[in-house]
């Protein structure tokens, strides 16, 4: 136990001093926090529940648009803002900006949760690939439809309010870093708390055999919806923060970016190891370091590399890093192995 506390406090301290030690990497670190949040929440569906969704991007994009819209709409007419295309006709005072951000983030987290509850009731009854393709369709449909709505900028995009001029040059980066780091801590603590309850066992039962779980008297539908709502809450929050961080929202390239963010979250969770608490965190970190470190070398071939990466990971490395570690050092994961049994297995091979 004390080892865990040491680890957590080390991570916490690193997180708190990181923006001051590595000031040049603030934006990268903020994006990393958001990516970890997305991978962790995807893991609730894909890893624990066995419902592989491409649709969590829906809540991410929804949160992004909602946060920015609330932040603008609280003080200025939204339609004129988007029409001016980010021209500085309206300027948020610092107080307005932070109030708007706070309310916006709450809305960005709560509304997707409600949406997830409603949609979840309709589509969580689908199984396997029907669910996967249905959620894929949802994500793309949301992108296409939001790209046609005038009030949030339609095809030309939506510029989020610029950060007010307070606290010097570094203030913007630090503000968004601590916001996303806070979201990460919140997500991790919440997910960890959830995973230590009976809820995780129920989700695993649904993954392993849904009909049997139902026969055992578990109201599977209820738990599936709750699981999705938890995901949607944190996805929306992450989306709201990311919108402010990027500063510009486009329907298909930033918000409902199924080709990039929507795939990333699946890939990160699989790379780290589905169905583990730490897997998505490790996966997201490795993926982000790889992406930031090598992306520039591909010079426009990023998506080609991404496609190859997906195929390679999915085919040759489906268990992920945690799964690999588990196979290598089973005793570290609390698995007791009967020596005789293991030998027998080796002989069989």
């Amino acid at each position, binding site marked *: 136990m004390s080892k865990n506390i040491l680890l957590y406090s080390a991570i916490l301290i690193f997180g708190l001093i990181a923006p001051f030690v590595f000031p040049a990497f603030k934006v990268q670190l903020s994006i990393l926090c958001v990516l970890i949040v997305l991978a962790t929440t995807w893991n609730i569906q894909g890893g624990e529940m066995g419902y592989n969704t491409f649709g969590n991007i829906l809540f991410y994009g929804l949160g992004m648009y909602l946060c920015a819209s609330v932040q603008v709409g609280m003080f200025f007419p939204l339609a004129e803002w988007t029409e001016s295309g980010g021209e500085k006709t309206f300027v948020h005072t610092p107080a307005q900006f932070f109030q708007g951000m706070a309310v916006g983030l709450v809305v960005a987290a709560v509304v997707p949760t409600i949406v997830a509850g409603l949609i979840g009731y*309709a589509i969580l009854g689908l199984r396997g690939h029907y669910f*996967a393709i249905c959620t894929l369709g949802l994500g793309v*449909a949301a992108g296409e439809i939001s790209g046609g709505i005038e009030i949030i900028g339609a095809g030309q995009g939506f510029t989020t309010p610029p950060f007010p001029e307070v606290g010097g040059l570094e203030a913007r980066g630090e503000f968004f870093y601590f916001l996303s780091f806070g979201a990460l801590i919140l997500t991790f603590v919440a997910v960890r708390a959830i995973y230590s309850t009976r809820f995780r066992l129920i989700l695993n039962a649904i993954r392993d055999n849904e009909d049997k779980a139902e026969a055992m008297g578990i109201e599977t539908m209820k738990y599936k919806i709750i699981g999705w709502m938890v995901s949607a809450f944190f996805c929306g929050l992450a989306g709201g923060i990311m919108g402010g961080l990027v500063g510009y929202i486009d329907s298909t390239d930033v918000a409902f970016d199924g080709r990039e963010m929507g795939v990333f979250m699946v890939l990160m969770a699989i790379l780290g190891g589905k169905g583990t608490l730490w897997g998505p965190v490790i996966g997201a970190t490795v993926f982000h370091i790889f992406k930031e470190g090598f992306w520039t070398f591909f010079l426009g071939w990023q*998506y080609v590399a991404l496609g190859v990466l997906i195929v390679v990971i999915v085919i040759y490395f489906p268990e992920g890093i945690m799964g690999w570690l588990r196979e290598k050092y089973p005793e570290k994961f609390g698995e007791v192995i009967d020596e005789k049994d293991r030998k027998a297995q080796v002989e069989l091979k």
Partner: protein
Amino acid sequence: MDFMVFQYPMITVQACLDGLLLGILFALIAYGMALQWGVMNIINIAQGDLVILGGYIAYFMYLYGIHPAWGVIVSPIIMYFIGVGIYKLVINKVVDRDLFISILATFGISILFMQLMNFAFGADVVLANSGYGTTMLFDNNVTLPNSKIFSAVISIVFAIGLVIYMKKSKLGRAIRATAQNSRAAKILGVDTEKVYAATFGINAALCGVAGALISITFTIHPYMGLPYTIRSFMIVIVAGLGNLPGVAMSGMGLGVFEEFADYILGTEFRIGAVFLLLVLILVYRRFKLSRKREYLK
């Protein structure tokens, strides 16, 4: 939103005709998807990208001065080998695995193809001009490009040809046997690995035909693949696997739906409407099935 459709009956006729001709093309793509789904139990997200790739083959023939209609012959031959290549490299490793693995792997292939086509052919919307002219109907109120009629006829010819091939030829029999029970087929001496490769190749060839026709009648663009995948998936789940008249009917129905969505909601919502329709169909299907389950209880 405007209601021209209801005020001018000729627009309705126009939309129906366009939709039917378009739908036949969709049905051809969906037939390929149903084939591989039924035989290999794989859902190929890259289906639409194979279609677009086939379209670019025809487009390049057009650029080099060959009439693009020849693409209908050349494109499936090239696409057959590309399909077999994809099978050997990727698909044969995911055939027996979890369905999600195959969805994700083909999603990766789709992203790969999308970007490679973007590099190779540029991000412009292109079309191969066949120079077939148009037919005017009903006192010039309804315009019907001859290329659309041509594409519908060719699709029907290919679909019928494939049905006959599946019924009569040795390979067709092997494919059908593998679809019914791959283990039994293996025991009886069918080389299922070869059958799978051929199935994927045939599917890619069908996509090639459809792509060549799409490049003649409509436009192609490297990023336009995914909607074709979704359309064919939708057609297959509405019609059911192995129900060919159903595939044709639901394909045409989808075509008509799209044309009307285009007129009523506006072109910018067309793709969105397709994807929403998919979600609605799946939700309807789920409630229908859950009612059936309650009967069983």
